[in-house]
């Protein structure tokens, strides 16, 4: 009969191993030793308690939560939760920047020129991109998902197909440079 699997060893430690496998455990020294080792370390982990905080801590925690949610919109959320300045301001600013860039840049400039790696790194220190980075810096993944700012399947493929030949070449060079940098 085969030895106990990892699942079965856990069942053995927890006392839920089925009868047939229990018979193997009773006769197999190796499996018994493994189960005993797991039970021993589990016992040691169980002995570690969470220190009890001060009795005043619990009300203090409630008060902290109360204070924060007092400044939050109602739990009902929905679109209402997005119609507030802390959310709208960065989005509006971002939209204005994109609009300003689209208007200010001449059409020729929008066609991606030959981009070298050093130029690509210059992008990071460009003030406009720094501003964008600052504006979106506080957005975490959960916020983006709940705002519906996720990428639909195939969207990246379509975006690449819409690039001009020059833009595709520039993108390829940037990706290769990043891959080389990641490997080194």
């Amino acid at each position, binding site marked *: 009969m085969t030895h106990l699997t990892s699942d079965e060893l856990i069942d053995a430690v927890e006392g839920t191993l089925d009868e047939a496998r229990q018979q193997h455990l009773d006769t197999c020294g190796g499996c018994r030793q493994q189960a005993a080792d797991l039970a021993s370390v589990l016992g040691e982990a169980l002995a570690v308690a969470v220190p009890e905080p001060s009795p005043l801590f619990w009300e203090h*925690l409630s008060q902290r939560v109360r204070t924060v949610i007092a400044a*939050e919109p109602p739990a009902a959320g929905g679109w209402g939760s997005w119609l507030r300045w802390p959310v709208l301001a960065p989005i509006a600013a971002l939209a204005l920047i994109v609009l300003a860039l689209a208007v200010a840049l001449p059409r020729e400039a929008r066609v991606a020129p030959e981009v070298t790696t050093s130029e690509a790194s210059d992008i990071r220190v460009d003030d406009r991109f720094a501003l964008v980075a600052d504006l979106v810096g506080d957005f975490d993944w959960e916020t983006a998902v709940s705002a519906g700012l996720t990428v639909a399947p195939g969207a990246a493929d379509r975006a690449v197909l819409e690039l001009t030949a020059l833009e595709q070449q520039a993108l390829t060079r940037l990706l290769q440079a990043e891959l080389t940098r990641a490997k080194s």
Partner: protein
Amino acid sequence: MTHGSAVRNAWAPAGTTGWTVTVVKPTAPETAAVTSVDGMDDATLVAASIEGRRDAFDVIVERHRRTVYQVCYRFVSNHEDASDLSQESFVRAWRGLKTFKGQSALSTWLYRIAVNVCLNRVSVKTPPTDPIESSDHFEDTRVEGAQTALLREERAATVRKAIASLPKKQRATLILRTYHDLSHQQIADILGSSVGATKANFFHALANLKKLLGSEP
């Protein structure tokens, strides 16, 4: 003239016959009774919170703060961070209440939030564990020798450190199974995995813990 109405001519001179008006003071409008939130079950509290009853959410916090704090403490092993993470978990719960469908118990949903908050935080930084002699905690050492207590606390710190060094899912599984007695199915729901994967994670967590503790002096 008889009138069936209670309204009679009260301003008619005395002794005159006619109408008598009895002014009936209108009763004060009944104020809407504010239902006490204290006795509400979790589902009712959630519904009341969504309707804007912040006092209902306060009761939710009160009921679950110890559990959430303990989960957080198990992840970070120090009071300050556990306290911050607990607060963050409840704030996220408030923001996400509308997404709580009641398919699982509120406690399971709160576990999920707390675990996610902790996993996100511990992936950013691994905070230091509490010093053994922490003034924030009350430890009654009168019943045993101070030296025994110190040795026990040292060993506990070693175990906490070993748990903190486990891979994230193994750590989460170990914490939820060992210290919160959640079933493998509940843990699978919280971590978005299967029962098989949860058992495998638990096995590897214990095996790794054994190795780590075995290598400690």
